[in-house]
């Protein structure tokens, strides 16, 4: 029978696309499996990882079970070594058409955001981009809204269903929208890297992972691009998402950007963290894009986030407001960043920054 994305009853199970580059599975895959496990449990269905590559390491595939996958579909083919839209789309669509998952999650990396829409278009289903929160259960969704929205949850009607509720920032982060895809399957979502937390690795479940080797149907003629070269940037990129402490700089450093970044680096060093930046600083070319925090940059939730000279545009807040402790330094007492901060100092970052560094160094030395 032909594949019909409107036959919703025929679809079952939660899938996660586990992206690999150079044979190494990206952290986003583990994050999505950890989140997918909860969704699969709410639905009482299987969680499956989907792994595409060439010469796929079976240990890596098995390890996906340690983060919650019951089963891993392994698609191993020489033409899947590096990502091409054509090859990956074909293999994933063939797989969906055969096994019919009800939910399909993909990390919103540069590659996931190329692949997701193409797959959704071919399957004729909906895709929600860059989600930051997912729910099945309406009660859990309501609990989520109670802490994250201004909605009067107890006096609002919610349509009860087991549809996936996909929440994402919209309109540059000014609004949150929860999207559903009630009449088509799979319900597809790309999820921002770093948003979902990775569950602790479980060796027992990893040992039980069922590997399903797929007979991949793919030939050169399916691929209409010629991947000439993949080049890694020489510079080591900053690991914003994995950092416990982020010291970020904003427009406030523009009087002396070099010194401003230096101050942030010194503070980051003493706290054991890394330097982030607002979009304004990146757009002005003062620091490279891998440092950018916010709606169009990275989403971080470190233990400590220090904002130096950042006004707190809603696009920036969208990327850091879930940090455990936010410390802000800004000359302008009415800067919106203070409304999101745990601690605030109204002052000049060029003076306050070094004093903070010194005070922390002194504190740590006294404690040691």
């Amino acid at each position, binding site marked *: 029978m032909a594949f019909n994305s409107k036959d919703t009853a025929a679809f079952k199970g939660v899938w996660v696309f586990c992206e690999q580059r150079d044979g190494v599975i990206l952290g986003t895959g583990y994050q999505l499996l950890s989140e997918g496990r909860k969704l699969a449990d709410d639905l009482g269905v299987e969680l499956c990882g989907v792994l595409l590559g060439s010469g796929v390491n079976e240990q890596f595939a098995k390890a996906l079970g340690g983060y919650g996958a019951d089963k891993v579909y392994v698609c191993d083919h020489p033409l899947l070594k590096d990502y091409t839209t054509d090859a990956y789309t074909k293999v994933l669509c063939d797989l969906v058409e055969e096994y019919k998952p009800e939910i399909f999650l993909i990390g919103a990396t540069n590659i996931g955001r190329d692949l997701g829409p193409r797959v959704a278009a071919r399957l004729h289903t909906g895709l929600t981009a*860059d989600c930051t929160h997912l729910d099945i259960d309406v009660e859990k969704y309501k609990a989520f809204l109670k802490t994250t929205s201004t909605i009067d949850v107890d006096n609002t009607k919610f349509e009860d269903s087991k549809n996936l509720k996909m929440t994402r920032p*919209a309109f540059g982060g000014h*609004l949150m929208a929860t999207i559903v895809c009630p009449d088509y399957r799979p319900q597809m979502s790309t999820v921002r890297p770093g948003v979902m937390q990775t569950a602790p690795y479980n060796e027992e479940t990893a040992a039980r992972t069922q590997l399903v080797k797929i007979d991949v149907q793919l030939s050169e003629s399916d691929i209409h691009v010629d991947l000439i070269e993949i080049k890694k940037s020489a510079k080591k990129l900053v690991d914003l998402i994995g950092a416990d402490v982020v010291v970020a700089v904003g427009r406030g450093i523009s009087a002396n950007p070099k010194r401003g970044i230096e101050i942030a680096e010194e503070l980051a060093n003493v706290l054991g963290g890394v330097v982030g930046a607002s979009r304004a600083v990146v757009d002005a070319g003062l620091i490279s894009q891998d440092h950018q925090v916010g709606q169009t940059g990275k989403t971080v939730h470190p233990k*400590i986030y220090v904002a130096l000279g950042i006004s707190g545009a809603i696009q920036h807040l969208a990327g850091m407001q879930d940090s455990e402790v936010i410390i802000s330094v800004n000359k302008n007492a009415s800067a919106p960043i203070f409304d999101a901060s745990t601690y*605030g100092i109204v002052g000049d970052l060029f003076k306050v920054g070094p004093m903070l560094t*010194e005070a922390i160094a002194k504190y740590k030395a006294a404690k040691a």
Partner: protein
Amino acid sequence: MKIIVCVKQVPDTSGVVAVKEDGTMDRAAMATISNPDDMNALEAALQIKETNKDVKVVVVSMGPPPTESMLRECLARGADEAYLISAREFGGADTWATSSTITAAIEKIGVEKDDIVLCGRQAIDGDTAQVGPQIAEKLGLPQVTYVTAIDYKDGKLTVRRALEDGYMTIGVETPCVLTCIKELNEPRYMSVSGIMECYAKPYTVWDFEALKDSKWISAVENVGLRGSPTQVYKSFSPPVKGKGTMMEGADKAACEQLVSILGEKHII
């Protein structure tokens, strides 16, 4: 050859954002701009036109009638022809329905062997980055997204695609769809002569009737809100957090006090 550039007029999300009761944006109440990535796509097309013979640049947009101002601006920057897809039936479309409608228009314009379709990577109102790849899929064309460099010589197209930690260099057959990002180029301004000419250039408006015979449309149920697989379940504003503790002063004592609080709470 022809380069079709898909452009969108978007609310300026850095300004005031107005939201209707049904959770969709009240576009009419907001200032609009040409979507930034789309202007990089237009610039790329104009640069190919400048360095190659017989290149026609066609801009296409779906939106309400005021979108004309943006399309005229594209003509003033150097595009040769503009098409506006505009009808009540197309309203409320998600990316699936939007890409179906734009695909119908592009197929009606016609895509030939040498042609290229350029889009911005994403629009700042939705930030989805989906419509470009979905147009590519529906047109049955290869795609490259996140394009930061285009080399077009003697009908051969080689592009550079940004990754988080580097880039890919990709040769791609034409016709194809490329989505562009701001690193690609610096969009030009309108020229005085361009502004003078922009109202004399071919400008076409297509409504539902004009496109309904496309296999991507065929019935009103397949476009706009009704043709959209995704629906808004709820929309909400993030709550404003209460102000935290503001330190007294900004001197050494204030810094030391803050550090001692952080220490007491085992934050550092």
